[in-house]
C-alpha cells in the first residue's frame, strides 16, 4: 500500500497498486506548481486510489489539449492530484505528498523544451521535448 497526504493532514490517500510510471514534467504549468522546478509525478490507475478530505480544483486546458483538473488542499495549498477528462482511468499523484518519496524514482523527463537552463536533468534517462505517448492506453 502506498500512502500520502498534504502538509496540514486534511487530505490523505491510499493506492493499492504500483505506479504505472514516474516522470518529471518541465512544462510551464508544472513549474508554477513545483516552485520553479519540474513536478515529479506518479501515474496510478484511478480505481486503485482512495482519497479522503476536501480538495480544491484548478481547471485548465493543458498544452497537450487535454481538460485538466489539478487538485490541491485549500488549507495548505499543496497540490496532490492531476486528472485529465480525456483519460479518466488514470490519476497523477505529486511525489512530494507521498509518506515515502524515496519510492518516486523518475524514469524520464517530459516537456524538456520548456526546462530552464539551470535544470539538472539526468542524461541517462529518456527525455521527451513535449508530451510523451500515453501510458495505460490499453485500459482506455
Amino acid at each position, binding site marked *: 500500500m502506498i500512502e500520502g497526504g*498534504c*502538509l*496540514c493532514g486534511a487530505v490523505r490517500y491510499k493506492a493499492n497498486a504500483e505506479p504505472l510510471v514516474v516522470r*518529471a514534467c518541465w512544462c510551464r*504549468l*508544472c*513549474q*508554477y*506548481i*513545483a*516552485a*520553479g*522546478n*519540474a*513536478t*515529479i*509525478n506518479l501515474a496510478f490507475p484511478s480505481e486503485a486510489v482512495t482519497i479522503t478530505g476536501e480538495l*480544491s480544483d*484548478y481547471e*485548465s486546458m493543458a498544452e497537450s489539449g487535454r481538460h485538466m483538473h*489539478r487538485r*490541491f*488542499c*485549500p*488549507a*495548505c*495549498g*499543496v*497540490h496532490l492530484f492531476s486528472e485529465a477528462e480525456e483519460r479518466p482511468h488514470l490519476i497523477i499523484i*505529486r*511525489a*512530494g*505528498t*507521498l509518506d515515502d*518519496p*524515496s519510492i*518516486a*524514482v*523518475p524514469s524520464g523527463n517530459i516537456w524538456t523544451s520548456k526546462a*530552464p*537552463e*539551470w535544470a*539538472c*536533468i*539526468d542524461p541517462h534517462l529518456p527525455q521527451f521535448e513535449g508530451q510523451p505517448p500515453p501510458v495505460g492506453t490499453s485500459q482506455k
Partner: protein
Amino acid sequence: MIAGGCLCGAVRYEANAEPLTMRACWCRFCQHIAAGNAAIGLAFPRKAMTITGELRDYATVADSGSHMHRRFCPSCGVHLFSEAEERLHLIFVRAGTLDDPSIVRPSVVIWTAQAPKWAKIDPDCVRFEGQPPPIA
C-alpha cells in the same frame, strides 16, 4: 523590475530590486510544495516587493525553528511567497511564479540531508545539509 504571479492571475507582484540569493531547498516541507522536487526560492528585501491579490497563509514552525508563513493563491493553489517572523525584512518568492523564470540561476542547495536518493543536485552549487547561515 521583476514581475510575476500565480497561474490563474489573481495574485501579482513586482520587485524593484535584484534578488539577494537564489537557492534550491530540499527540506521535506518544500518537497510538498514543489511536487516532490526542491523548491527554488529567490530572496528579496521585503520593502522592494509590492503584492496585489488575495493570499492564503499556511503558518508553521520550520525545522530551523523559524515561524513561517507560506502564502498561496486560494484559487489555483500556487505557492508564491514565504516569510519568517524572525526575518521580516526578507521575502522569498517561488521561482515558478516569475513571468520570466530564465533570470533564475540557483547557486546554493540547502537541506540536502532530506533529499531523496534519486535527487539530481547541481555539482556546481554550494551545498548545506541543513539550514544555511542567514543571508541578510
